[in-house]
């Protein structure tokens, strides 16, 4: 079985579901269940190791290494969680899509359940792509699907505003990335990353055009992952987009950006490369600024989605610093694997936060931190889950988030980047302040005298919530669980 057939199969499933959505009047939930079933099957193939390899003729464009398989599984899990979240959030989507919400029942939900599949296909191809054009096409599949998803609630001004902002800045960043790629191709005459790496290692003469290409490509990718100073769009888009899409953006889109960054930075940092020094400097400065700004700006936030937006900026900073630390032999992991580990710990904690946020929103609560007040008493299970996820985001020991931060900080020590070590520690300390502010809200008394409806979750969401919380706690004690999946 070729791993490409996974992508083709999921893409086909997405197309079939779109047709079912438009021609048959089945309950929209069935479309979501079909998507979940397809994703679970694909996940089973990857976990069982039956994904196999690709023929040699494809190896210039598409590789299947442990990192690729890891990110493919990551993409599938993120998509699964997003669709489960969407089931929870369905009433809100319907309310803001339908022309007459009171007359229809499930307007727009068919597309909302099938579009994530296309994002997933794009991310899976991207995990394997080692060719500039393949990378670009896969990235565009992800981004274009996200444009639609972000602006999905067409009767909500906030969602439309988020969509327009995301579209314009996304187009700009894509332009920067492609322009950089064209310069790189123009200078090296190679499209495959291995070819580019060989040319960079044996470069003679003027390196300024290469640096120009590198700068443009890194700027374009920094937009995608939300690194300072290219982060301005993140808080507004995260706040305006439908909550499941926000979760998908902050995990899926970020991971997609980082798998491309890992491959491209790996090419730039190939031994003997002419641009190795500047690229490490750029990554470190971007990462340091991102950690500082993300964490400091998060302190002032009162909206929970916005706070998570800034938190995702801060986490991108740690990931960038991780990519810059290439001498990580002491950790028995490469810099790309440290970043992948970090992302794998980031996924469950983010999704727990957004699951609970969706459940609250579907019951009519607001998205402010203040509206979380009383959750710990109204539904102690949800309150505890949220508290664990937030503690993990902050990096409390014995949670997954701590292990992720620990590896990054350890990598900076191994490299001797003490300035960035200090920045990382300052950022983590700041994180404790604003994440624990939310935990404090969860366990404090509600402001109003009357208590609203108790937030609750459906069965699928409960199962995934339990899995994610268990993952946070187990990985916090036993990080090798993820490391074994990465380092084979």
């Amino acid at each position, binding site marked *: 079985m070729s791993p490409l057939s996974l992508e083709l199969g999921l893409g086909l499933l997405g197309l079939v579901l779109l*047709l079912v959505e438009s021609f048959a009047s089945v309950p929209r939930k069935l479309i979501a269940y079909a998507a979940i079933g397809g994703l679970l099957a694909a996940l089973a193939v990857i976990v069982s190791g039956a994904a196999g390899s690709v023929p040699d003729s494809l190896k210039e464009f598409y590789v299947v290494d442990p990192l690729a398989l890891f990110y493919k599984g990551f993409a599938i899990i993120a998509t699964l969680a997003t669709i489960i979240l969407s089931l929870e959030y369905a009433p809100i989507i319907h309310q803001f899509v339908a022309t007459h919400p009171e007359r229809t029942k499930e307007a727009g939900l068919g597309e909302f359940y099938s579009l994530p599949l296309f994002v997933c296909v794009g991310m899976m191809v991207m995990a394997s792509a080692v060719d500039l054009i393949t990378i670009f096409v896969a990235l565009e599949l992800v981004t274009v699907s996200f444009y639609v998803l972000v602006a999905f609630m067409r009767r909500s001004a906030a969602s439309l505003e988020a969509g327009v902002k995301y579209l314009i800045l996304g187009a700009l960043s894509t332009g920067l990335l492609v322009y950089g790629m064209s310069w790189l191709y123009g200078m090296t005459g190679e499209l495959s990353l291995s070819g580019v790496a060989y040319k960079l290692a044996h470069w003679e003469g003027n390196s300024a055009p290469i640096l120009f290409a590198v700068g443009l490509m890194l700027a374009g990718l920094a937009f995608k992952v939300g690194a300072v100073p290219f982060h301005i769009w993140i808080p507004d888009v995260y706040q305006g987009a439908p909550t499941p899409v926000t979760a998908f953006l902050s995990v899926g889109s970020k991971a997609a950006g980082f798998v491309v960054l890992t491959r491209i930075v790996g090419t730039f940092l190939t031994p003997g490369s002419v641009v190795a020094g500047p690229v490490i400097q750029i990554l470190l400065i971007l990462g340091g600024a991102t950690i500082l700004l993300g964490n400091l700006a998060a302190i002032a936030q009162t909206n929970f989605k916005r706070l998570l937006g800034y938190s995702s900026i801060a986490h991108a900073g740690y990931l960038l610093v991780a990519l810059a630390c290439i001498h990580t032999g002491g950790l028995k992991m490469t810099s790309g694997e440290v970043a992948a580990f970090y992302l794998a710990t980031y996924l469950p904690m983010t999704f727990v936060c957004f699951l609970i946020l969706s459940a609250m929103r579907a019951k009519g609560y607001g998205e402010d931190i203040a509206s979380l007040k009383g959750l710990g008493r109204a539904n102690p299970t949800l309150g505890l889950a949220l508290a664990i996820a937030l503690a993990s985001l902050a990096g409390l020991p014995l949670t997954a988030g701590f292990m992720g931060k620990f590896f990054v900080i350890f990598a900076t020590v191994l490299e001797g980047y003490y300035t960035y070590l200090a920045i990382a520690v300052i950022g983590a300390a700041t994180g404790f302040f604003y994440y624990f502010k939310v935990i404090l809200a969860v366990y404090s008394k509600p402001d109003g005298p009357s208590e609203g409806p108790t937030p609750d979750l459906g069965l699928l969401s409960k199962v995934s919530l339990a899995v994610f919380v268990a993952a946070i706690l187990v990985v916090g004690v036993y990080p090798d669980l993820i490391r074994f999946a990465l380092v084979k």
Partner: protein
Amino acid sequence: MLENYLPVLMQMLMAAGFAGVTLLASVLAGKSAKRNKMKDSAYECGMLPLGEAQPRFSVKFYIVAMLFVLFDIEVVFMYPWAVIFKDYVAVFGAAIFWWMLSFVGILLVAFLYAWRKKALDWSS
């Protein structure tokens, strides 16, 4: 080190210079006559301007334009395919036919979707 960037500097100077000279020329050569209200009004084939400068268009126009681009791009791929089709089939067999068919199949799904969602129905 820095002299490596001389071409970049030259290109930037050229770009800025061209834009600057053009703007300067239009300031110096144009706007020299006296202004009056008639001259400053919008010119519309000698008619008096009617309505707003930015009227609202029906969203149908955008949908049609989008579908046009979709199926227009399809032909961009089909042209080179059709050109090499005969030679390729003679050497490698019919695989090339099925590749294009799968591509057109994906577009067919898009077409069916658009049709079913009444995107092609102008009167509704």
